């Protein structure tokens, strides 16, 4: 009724929607900007008065002076803070990438187990989910690092599994390939294999579209790549030699060593995140309506085909968005490495570098900027994938 009134006579400005909306926006913006300016000016004043230092990232070029336990690139104490930062970043990448892969595998397994008709299997999955979803990750990580991995035998009494794999409370040492001269040639062969596999996949897809019988393309692709890889391996003179770990002095030498901190962090992250992924997977599969399954059966599809062609693609649509946020959570949660001594981005920058340089603002700006861009890139990629598999609505 008011609206009819309003249309007839021009309202006073304090009731005019346009004026009011503009005003309210200005008020909010003013408050936000004002607060921001207030904080920043305080900070600059405080810094210049109390400590007579200005914001500057020059310290990144100074010598770091501390050692880092594990690094994917060459690093020594003579390197700069910037390089130490990159070491931390790469460690974060490493644990996040491996964590995502393993957590997805374990999560899908538990999720499918949760739907199993077998009572015991079903219960085990349910208990797993209920237990690990309700315990803080930090407690789990500390428990895992201090009460599990540290209680493994000492390195001199290490469990030696065939390989040999050394299992001790320092971590796990496994045999690792060392490239020889022919490694680069082998890489070229592998590249060719991937190209060939892609070609095969394209051809099969076209044929599948024509005949209406779509083969399982990823299998063909992987098969082709593997076949080419195998042939290349046999023809070339040993592209990789195996470096076996052995016990020498204090530690194992040779091979690849996965440290106790890394393993504790990785397994903690995987076990925790898998419980959430399992729920996501279960919900996704259950979200596909029963009618779909029945219709597929009625059309004569085998159970495997039903799962692969009908259930899974539809479930994926429900699964992807929450799965994305689980991946993001895992990446951000890897910052809890600080509690168990794995030198990730946050531990190196937020702990050691900050402590040595005292440049809290610069260091935190770097850390937060890095995590923010990591998150944005991951969600961008996942959104693109989500767009691709989305239901086309008309």
């Amino acid at each position, binding site marked *: 009724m008011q609206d009819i009134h309003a249309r007839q006579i021009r309202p006073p400005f304090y009731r005019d929607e346009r004026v009011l909306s503009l005003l309210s*926006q200005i008020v909010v913006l003013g408050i936000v900007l004002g607060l921001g300016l207030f904080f920043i000016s305080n900070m600059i004043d405080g810094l210049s008065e109390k400590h007579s230092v200005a914001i500057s990232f020059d310290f990144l070029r100074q010598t770091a002076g501390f050692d880092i336990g594990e690094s994917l690139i060459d690093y020594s104490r003579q390197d700069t803070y910037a390089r130490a930062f990159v070491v931390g970043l790469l460690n974060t990448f490493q644990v996040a990438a491996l964590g995502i892969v393993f957590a997805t595998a374990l999560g899908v397994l538990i999720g499918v187990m949760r739907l199993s008709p077998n*009572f015991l299997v079903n219960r085990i999955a349910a208990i797993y989910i209920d237990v690990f979803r*309700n315990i*803080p990750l930090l407690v789990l990580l500390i*428990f895992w690092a201090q009460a599990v991995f540290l*209680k493994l035998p000492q390195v001199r009494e290490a469990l030696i599994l065939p390989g040999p794999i050394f299992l001790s409370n320092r971590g796990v040492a496994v045999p690792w390939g060392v490239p020889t001269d022919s490694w680069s040639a082998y890489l070229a062969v592998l590249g060719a294999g991937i190209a060939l596999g892609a070609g095969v996949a394209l051809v099969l897809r076209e044929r599948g579209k024509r005949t209406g019988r779509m083969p399982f393309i990823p299998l063909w692709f992987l098969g082709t790549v593997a076949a080419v890889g195998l042939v290349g391996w046999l023809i070339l003179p040993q592209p990789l030699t195996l470096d076996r770990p052995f016990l020498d002095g204090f530690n194992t030498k040779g091979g690849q060593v996965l440290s106790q901190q890394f393993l504790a962090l990785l397994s903690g992250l995987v076990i925790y995140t898998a419980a959430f992924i399992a729920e996501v997977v279960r919900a996704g599969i259950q979200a596909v309506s029963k009618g779909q399954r029945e219709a597929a059966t009625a059309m004569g599809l085998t159970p495997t085909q039903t799962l692969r062609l009908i259930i899974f693609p539809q479930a994926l649509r429900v699964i992807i968005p929450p799965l994305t946020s689980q991946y993001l959570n895992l990446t951000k949660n890897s910052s809890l490495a600080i509690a168990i001594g794995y030198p990730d981005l946050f531990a190196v920058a937020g702990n050691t570098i900050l402590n040595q340089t005292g440049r809290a603002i610069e260091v*935190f700006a770097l850390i*937060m900027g890095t995590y923010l861009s990591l998150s944005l890139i991951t969600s961008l990629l996942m959104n693109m994938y989500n767009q691709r598999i989305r239901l086309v609505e008309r």
Partner: protein
Amino acid sequence: MTTAATSATRSLPPPSERYTILGWLRKNLFSSLFNTVLTVVAVAFIVFILQSLLRWAFTSAEWGVIPANFNLIMRGRYPAAEAWRLWLVLYLLGGAVGMIWSLTTRQIGTALLVVFVLPFALMLVPFFSWAIRLNLLLVEVIGIGGYALGRYLPIERRGRAIAYLLIGYLILMLVVLRGFGEDANTLPAVPTTLWGGLLLSLLLAFFGIALSFPLGVLLALGRQSQLPAIRIASVIYIEFIRGVPLISLLFMGQVMLQLFLPDGFPTIDRVLRALVAITLFSAAYTAENVRGGLQSVSRGQHEAAQALGLSGYQTTMLIILPQALRAVIPVLVGQFIGLFKDTSLVALVGLFDLLGIARTVLANPDWLGTQQEIYVMVAGLYWIFSYMMSYASRRIEEQLGVGKR
């Protein structure tokens, strides 16, 4: 997967087969070769886990560390002379829970029994003193009293009654715990530096939830707003917070906050700083969850509300939000559980919450090397509270019939 496809075609066995133990076993555990193999593997797995767990718990674990540090674990350094205030808070909690329960559901189900058996079960803990047991009994009695009282309240107004009850309880709790002035005779102030243990964890979670929820709803509405400035500000806030780890916000609060404030500004309480970081962090996630709910409300609801002549405010508060929130209750509770678990991160910035206290107990020379016992107990405590929350959420879902309408 295979059984689901075939079960539709198979006719039901006679009841005698369905309801005998043997029939049940056959159907659920040994229906096919694959299933049998699974069962055998699962049994082996369960036996292995249980055996190692029980062996540890009854032979090698030194449980003495827990009774010896029980007070520290429960209330941190909260002075023993003022411990009665914690009991008072628990009495009130018992009353409030009883009342809310009788307001939300009028029948006595198994869930109710669980809640009411809990204090009795706690009384059986062997190392508890008689004073603790008596206090637990009082909590129980007051809880039952609250339940009885709740039955006399008109059920039509229960939403409002619960809201007032909760807000009133939160305020009262804070007053009782914090006390008044330094020199007050009744309820002398207990500074937050002395709060610790389970008490601090629960308080951070309580107030974190209570504060982040309205802020999150506001942000969600802001993100849906037609006003660009508000929308953009909300989006930036939400995306920024969701992009960084909570630990970085907590560190900033503890280490850098003072830098952003003018000289001579009074020092802000450390617990409050942690609470603010947790609240700001959680609000961004709440906002995204609530937004999901807002999007699920169909456009017709808007239009219908307008057709009835409701104002924008009324439409939002009476039509849109109730439906949106109802749709996202499970997600929200999940997130609140996450918030509760996340309070453990304050241990990393030097507060003595449950985890922080556990770490100081481990630094005590008398109790070195008891990591397994302490952390199992800490994990157990977190688990109990998280599980109770998710259990309550399932009950509320059933009550409100989410997914059934």
